[in-house]
Every structure is written in structure tokens, then in C-alpha cells.
């Protein structure tokens, strides 16, 4: 760094031989590559900003979405991402220390700090793997579609499911069986399929309705007394619907679940605490940007929708088609931007390992300078730089 800016007259400067920037070819090309890579990431983040501005208040908020810590559970907004940022900053520091050691031709120092950088890189990759897994699996509540067609994300403490008590035998479970394993998974699977109901009588009622509709749909032309029959069936159907609505309007206490094998079981579950619904898609009643729904009303709306017998009322976690946090594009941007960055970190770690082997073998010491360490260092700092922006624009704002 000492005599960087050597003063040259303009004839020497532009007459070949000398570089106008007093920089080696390799380093300059690394910078040009980084500029182009920076433009790629800028493009991605601006595309994100564009989509977010069009979606406005339906867009998820970082502190609502990312508030979990490993081993500790929920309620730690952004702490985990801050930890990831810190890990990456520290690994950037160890890298710059390796470069500094290289400038002093201190081979041992370079090896020490490069290994520290590589370890930091692996820590970051591991953290990102955890975060992706958490994002994909989602919360216990998921995102719910309410009766008015609006969609809401759900916050609060999910009361633990204690057991399923079989009240009607199916292909696998016997009457009176108590199931205690894999409860949350079965519960969520049933909720997605619309196999959770308020009580057994709802299931019977719905079955009767189906049968009646099937009878109505049968070809009755030419059958004696068909008209009278149709009127009777219609009356029966409206009576069943009325009964159904009566049951549905009562407060939700504890539901029944139709298990995989067709058996019906009572759900023994502790009550949820601090339940809160935040509207992310407007319906006829609840609008995006309105007040969050809390307390008993939230419980009623959530379980009312969960237990109304229709499939696809609830979304858990995220994939490329849908996610529980907000609009579809949110999940896609999450996967693409953090994935693309993670891929850069991964390749950075690989390059660092290769260069570190070179340092150990003494390749650069023989050359008389450690510029290769400087070049891989540039790439590594760039990865840190990108994360600083991803952290702000994806998580904080």
C-alpha cells in the first residue's frame, strides 16, 4: 500500500508497458468482474423492490417472517439474520488480515487467517441451510383463507397437540386408540386436505349432503313420482345445510380429525395463546392494512376456517408456488436472491480452499508476492458487501 501511486508522465503512462492504474492485469480484471456481478445483484434487488412496491402493504415484513432462533423458538425478530451478518463480517475481517499478512510475506499468518475465513464461510452456509429449512417448513399456524375470501398470516403461540383419541375405527386404527406420535405433521396434513371438522356430527351431516346431492343428480326422468321426489330431496338438503350452519356458528371447542386411514379421532390440544391474524390479501370483509384481528375473534375465525371441511384453506411453509408469508413472488425472490448469494458464498469458500492449498504448498511465496490471496480476498469481500445490501433490503425494510 505504501508506494501505490507512482507518478508517471503521460508519455510513459499511455505508451504501453505501464498500466495507467499501476495495478496488475489480474487484479483489474477481478474488479471488472465484480462490477458486472454487482450489476447482477443490483438488478435482482431492484426487481425485488419493484415487485414489493406494486404489492404495497400485502408484502410480508421481515421482523414478522424471520423471528426464530435455533433451540429457542419464536420471538427473536431478526436476531438470527443479524448473527449471520456478524459471521460474514468477521470472516471478511479474517480475510483482510490474511491479505495483510501476505503483504508482509508472512506465510504462516496467511494460512492461519485463510483457514479462519474458510471456517467462517462454512458457518454462514450452515446458518443459511437452517434458515432455508425453517422458511420452507414454516410455522405451526400457516396462512389461513378466511370465510370472506381474505388471507391472513397468523402470529402467536401454538398450543401443543397432546394426542388423537380415535372414536371411529378406520383401516389401521381401532376404536379407543390414543395416538401420540407425529401429531403436528398429521394435523397440518389434514388441515391442508380439509379433513378437520368441528365434531363428528358435521362429518355425518356433510356425508348426508353428498348422498342427497348424488340422488338429486341421478337421472330421474320417466320415474313415477319423480317431481315429488326431487322436492323432498331438496327440502332434505336445505334442512341439512341449515343444521350445518347452526353447528358452524357455535364457538369452536375441540375438533375431530379424519386420519389417513379414514378413522376419525378427537383432537386433544392445549389452547393457543396471543393469537393474532394479519390480513395479507383483501376479502369482502377484512382488508390489507387494516387492524390485526386478536383474541377470541381470531381463534374463532382461524379454527372456523380450518374446520370448514374445504381443502386448500391453509398454506404451511413455502415453495415456488405458494408460501405462508405473503404473495407468491415473495417466496420466489427469497429463494432466488438468498440462493444466488449463498451460491456465491459456496464458490467463494471453494476458491479460498484452493488458494489456501496454494499458500501451504508455497506457490505464492516463490512468486515473491501474495497477490492471489488479495484477488480471492476481493471476491470474498464482495460476497460480504452483497449480503449487507440483502440484509437491509430483504430483511430490515
Amino acid at each position, binding site marked *: *500500500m*505504501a508506494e*501505490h*501511486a*507512482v507518478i508517471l508522465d503521460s508519455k510513459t503512462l499511455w505508451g504501453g*508497458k505501464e*498500466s495507467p*492504474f*499501476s*495495478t*496488475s492485469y489480474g*487484479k*483489474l480484471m477481478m474488479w*471488472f468482474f465484480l*462490477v458486472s456481478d454487482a*450489476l447482477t445483484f*443490483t*438488478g435482482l434487488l*431492484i426487481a425485488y*423492490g*419493484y*415487485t*414489493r*412496491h*406494486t*404489492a*404495497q402493504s400485502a408484502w410480508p*415484513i*421481515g*421482523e414478522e417472517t424471520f423471528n426464530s432462533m435455533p433451540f429457542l423458538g419464536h420471538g427473536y*425478530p*431478526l*436476531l438470527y439474520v*443479524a448473527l449471520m451478518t456478524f459471521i460474514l*463480517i*468477521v470472516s*471478511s*475481517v479474517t*480475510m*483482510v488480515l490474511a*491479505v*495483510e499478512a501476505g*503483504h*508482509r*510475506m508472512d506465510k504462516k499468518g496467511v494460512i492461519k487467517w485463510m483457514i479462519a475465513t474458510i471456517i467462517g464461510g462454512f458457518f454462514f452456509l450452515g446458518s443459511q441451510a437452517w434458515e432455508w429449512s425453517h422458511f420452507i417448513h414454516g410455522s405451526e399456524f400457516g396462512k389461513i383463507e378466511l370465510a370472506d375470501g381474505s388471507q391472513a398470516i397468523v402470529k402467536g403461540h401454538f398450543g401443543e397437540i397432546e394426542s388423537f383419541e380415535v372414536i371411529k375405527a378406520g383401516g389401521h386404527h381401532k376404536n379407543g386408540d390414543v395416538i401420540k406420535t407425529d401429531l403436528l405433521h398429521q394435523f397440518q396434513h389434514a388441515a391442508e386436505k380439509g379433513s378437520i371438522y368441528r365434531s363428528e356430527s358435521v362429518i355425518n351431516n356433510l356425508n348426508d349432503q353428498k348422498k342427497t346431492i348424488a340422488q338429486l343428480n341421478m337421472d330421474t326422468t320417466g320415474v313415477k313420482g319423480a317431481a315429488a321426489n326431487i322436492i323432498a330431496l331438496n327440502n332434505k338438503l336445505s334442512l341439512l345445510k341449515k343444521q350445518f350452519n347452526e353447528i358452524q356458528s357455535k364457538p369452536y371447542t375441540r375438533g375431530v380429525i379424519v386420519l389417513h386411514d379414514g378413522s376419525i379421532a378427537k383432537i386433544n390440544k392445549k389452547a393457543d395463546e396471543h393469537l393474532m391474524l394479519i390480513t395479507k390479501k383483501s376479502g369482502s370483509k377484512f382488508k390489507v392494512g387494516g387492524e390485526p384481528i386478536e383474541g377470541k375473534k381470531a381463534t374463532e375465525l382461524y379454527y372456523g376456517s380450518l374446520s370448514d371441511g374445504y381443502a386448500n384453506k391453509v398454506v404451511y411453509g413455502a415453495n415456488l408456488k405458494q408460501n405462508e408469508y405473503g404473495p407468491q413472488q415473495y417466496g420466489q425472490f427469497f429463494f432466488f436472491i438468498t440462493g444466488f448469494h449463498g451460491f456465491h458464498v459456496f464458490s467463494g469458500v471453494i476458491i479460498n480452499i484452493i488458494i489456501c492449498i496454494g499458500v501451504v504448498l508455497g506457490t505464492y511465496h516463490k512468486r*515473491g*508476492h501474495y*497477490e492471489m490471496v*488479495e484477488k480471492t*480476498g476481493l471476491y470474498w*469481500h*464482495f460476497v*460480504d*458487501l452483497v449480503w*449487507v*445490501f440483502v*440484509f*437491509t433490503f430483504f430483511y*430490515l*425494510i
Partner: protein
Amino acid sequence: MLRDDLIEYSLNTHHSEDQGKKIRKKIFFVTLLLTVITAVEVLLGAFIHQNSSLWPFVKWTFIILTLFKAGYIVMIFMHLGDEKKWMRNVILIPYFIFVLYLIFIALCEALKVGGALALYGN
């Protein structure tokens, strides 16, 4: 074929033990600064929510702090501050011209599209 007329710029960056001490001091100062900025950002994010009236102020604070962090990383960690002035300009000026224009045009367009969607529905 090895050329002997090329200047080996890579040696320019070498420095002595004493200079190294100074540089390391600077590195640790920047580390502390970046950590403190990140901690401040997280605390602000945790305590001031997006529906708060202070939010626009906090949002711009985040953006400015981020640019600060980015500046320190590029200028100190990536040593761009130690390069020649025109090398710095060749890297930064084209990038900023392009990006500022892109941000301006994309966000203006997005606000109009968002407004239209809000008015006429999806």
C-alpha cells in the same frame, strides 16, 4: 515466453512490520464500526415497527447506514481507497450512473403499477 519489460505492480503493495501494525489497527476499528452499525440496525428494527410513525425516518436511517457499511467494506477491506483515483472512478462511476437510473425508473414505474392495481384490483 517470459517478458522482462513488464512492470510487476504486485510488489507495490508490500509493507513492513510497523506499517502492518497500523493497518491492523485500522482493520479492527472498521470491524468494530461494522458490528456496532449492524447491532444498531437490529435494535431499531426490533423496537420500531413498520406501522410506527417513525418508520420512514428509520427506513432512511437503514439505507444510509447500509451505504456507510458498504463504503467501509469497499474502501478499506477491498483497498479501493488505496488505488489510484482514476481506477476508483472507472469502477464506481459507470456503476452508479446505471444503478441510480435503474432505481429511479423501476420504483417510479412500480408505484404507478401498484396504484393501478389498488384501484382496479388484480
